């Protein structure tokens, strides 16, 4: 019944559809094409062969995943309690506190990183792996807190009351009701932290005085040095890792959370 002349305005999406085709779909196709060709444009698996046979690249890759995992884990550890407190009416009523946690998400990541470097300088702590992990957690913690906070916030409070009514202790309520119900938020938090940490490039460079290299940096260096095909192959590998990760999370949920960012 809703179909009407209104529907003819579906053609309005056409310019944008074209734009998406050229600036989103085609570039991704190009990554695949470049990844599977050599610099003469011939079909080849050389780029992937190179990746597997170079211990340095593989090590960087594994090390990056490790760093990303540690960062993500620390973010859950620090972020979950914060999100829980923020969403609990008995523990926190202030919307301003919530905003203060979300706000750093909107500051340039380089500025934030440089600020961290400045903090370490100020406290005379040497840069290195510790600084790297601290900086990453510092950069991405808000991205963990926000989605968890969001799910907890939307949770039907009567469920908790129901559990209490049925005789559950507060700790039981937390582990058997609150935690399971907040898992979607945790999953999307993991996506929002793991994905950028595995793909960052400049941050690691600045936080470790270029002593520790992450996978993102390797990709960037290759592209900058004209090794487009190899760089594209590495990008494709990263995309696959991210694709696999996102299989574990509901992408709808995530876009919803991002949509509610402001």
């Amino acid at each position, binding site marked *: 019944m809703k*179909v009407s002349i209104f529907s003819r305005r579906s053609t309005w999406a056409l310019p944008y559809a074209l734009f998406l085709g050229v600036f989103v779909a085609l570039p991704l196709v190009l990554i695949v094409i470049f990844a599977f060709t050599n610099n003469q444009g011939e079909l080849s698996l050389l780029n992937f062969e190179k990746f597997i046979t170079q211990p340095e690249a593989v090590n960087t890759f594994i090390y990056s995943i490790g760093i990303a995992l540690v960062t993500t884990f620390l973010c859950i550890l620090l972020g979950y309690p914060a999100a829980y407190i923020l969403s609990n009416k008995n523990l926190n009523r202030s919307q301003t506190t919530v905003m203060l946690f979300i706000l750093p998400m909107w500051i340039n990541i380089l500025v934030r990183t440089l600020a961290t470097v400045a903090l370490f300088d100020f406290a005379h702590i040497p840069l290195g792996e510790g600084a790297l992990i601290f900086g990453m957690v510092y950069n991405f913690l808000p991205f963990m807190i926000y989605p968890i906070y969001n799910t907890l916030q939307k949770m039907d409070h009567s469920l908790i009351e129901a559990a209490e009514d049925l005789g559950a202790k507060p700790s039981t309520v937390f582990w058997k009701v609150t935690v399971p119900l907040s898992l979607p938020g945790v999953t999307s938090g993991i996506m929002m932290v793991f994905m950028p940490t595995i793909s960052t490039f400049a941050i690691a460079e600045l936080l470790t005085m270029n002593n520790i290299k992450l996978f993102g940096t390797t990709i960037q260096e290759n592209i900058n040095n004209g090794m487009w095909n190899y760089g594209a192959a590495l990008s494709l590998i990263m995309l696959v890792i991210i694709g696999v990760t996102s299989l574990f999370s509901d992408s709808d949920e995530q876009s919803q959370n991002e949509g509610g960012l402001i």
Partner: protein
Amino acid sequence: MVTNNDTIIKIEHLSKAFGDKVVLDDINLDIRRGEFITLLGPSGCGKTTLLRMIAGFLKPDSGVIMMEGNDISEVPPHRRPLNTVFQRYALFPHLNVYDNIAFGLKLNKVPAAEIESRVRKSLKMVSMTDYEDRDVNSLSGGQQQRVAIARAIVNRPKVLLLDEPLAALDLKMRKDMQMELKQMHQELGITFIYVTHDQEEALTLSDTVVVMSDGKIQQIGTPIDIYNEPTNSFVADFIGESNILNGTMVCDREVEFIGHKFECVDEGFGNNTPVDVVVRPEDIYIIANAENAKFTGTVKSCIFKGVHYEMFVETDNGYELMLQDYNAFEVGSTVGMFIKPSDIHVMAKERTCNTFEGKMLSATTVEIMGGEFHCADCGLAEGESVYASINFDRVELLDNKEDGTVMGEIEFILYKGNHYHLTVLTDSGEKVYVDTNDIWDKGDIVGISVDISDLHISKRV
């Protein structure tokens, strides 16, 4: 009320389908100037589609809509001299009451002074004087609907279209608005085309009621005609409460149903013709003394309904009837009943058995309703086109949908006193009519099977 009898809108052979689903099927309708006409039917019957086509929001697949002799089928909505009141008001949220009402006038470049006076006049008409500067979002549903009506009538349309305008209001507000609409119609003297699924509203307001179902017009008539002389069992069931029963026209002015012969006023059906009989619950007279009655029964239930009591009575021959009376009769008591000849409404049966067009798949199998059914060998070769007929009470419905030869969904249920008459829509889009004593719900998915001996095949030419 209607003084002028000339036609303002003429609809001819109008059809519309959304994808495979036919929503309007060959609609023909004349709307007279100044009349209050209501399109009435259950949701999905096509009434809103028809209204939207008159408004111009939808284009017909075929057929024409004529307005004052001109074909307007291709005219875009903003150039049609009619205005619409939408179900959910559709007020512009960013404009206040005044600007909402003045919207159409401003577009038509009406001088400011005239806009002002016309807006005030129409606000007065809907009893909303002094609301000009209010934010439309701050108004109650009833007030919003008044503004929506004012916004439409301020343009002095020749025809006002109203799409279930009162559906979102509560009962009390709805009753008040009904009276106001009726009064407004008389004052304005323009044609109202009104869409509703509420039969009481339709009967209260209209000069003419158009009952629709399945994209077809079932009956057009005055409210009194529609109520008293429903043309088929759908209309009888949809309009008001009724007992719909199978009967046989014995001869002119005599009809047999619920196991008794009754005198009636209908003629011309022929002798011994199967018919549907409709008796309104308030038309069955009930007395405590069973001896002088036409027929007797036992009271099964009795519920107070505010003004009257509603009772279900099991008759001496095992039929269940609904009746309404001002007096209560004790449950379990034996009562006597009679019906006046003029209160018995006889309708010709649309069909007496299911008939399907099909094709022989072999000498003993036939394809109908999109499935393969076994039938007795009647000497027809593979590929021959045939008619297959099945009596209503010989169609078997199965709980487990996989067990049937084909699947169907129960679309419509009619209680006929001692059994249910179901309309089942098969996956192939055909309708199967089933008489059964089993209780099913609307929307149930069932398996359909037919015993080999109940399937009657005849050659199609």
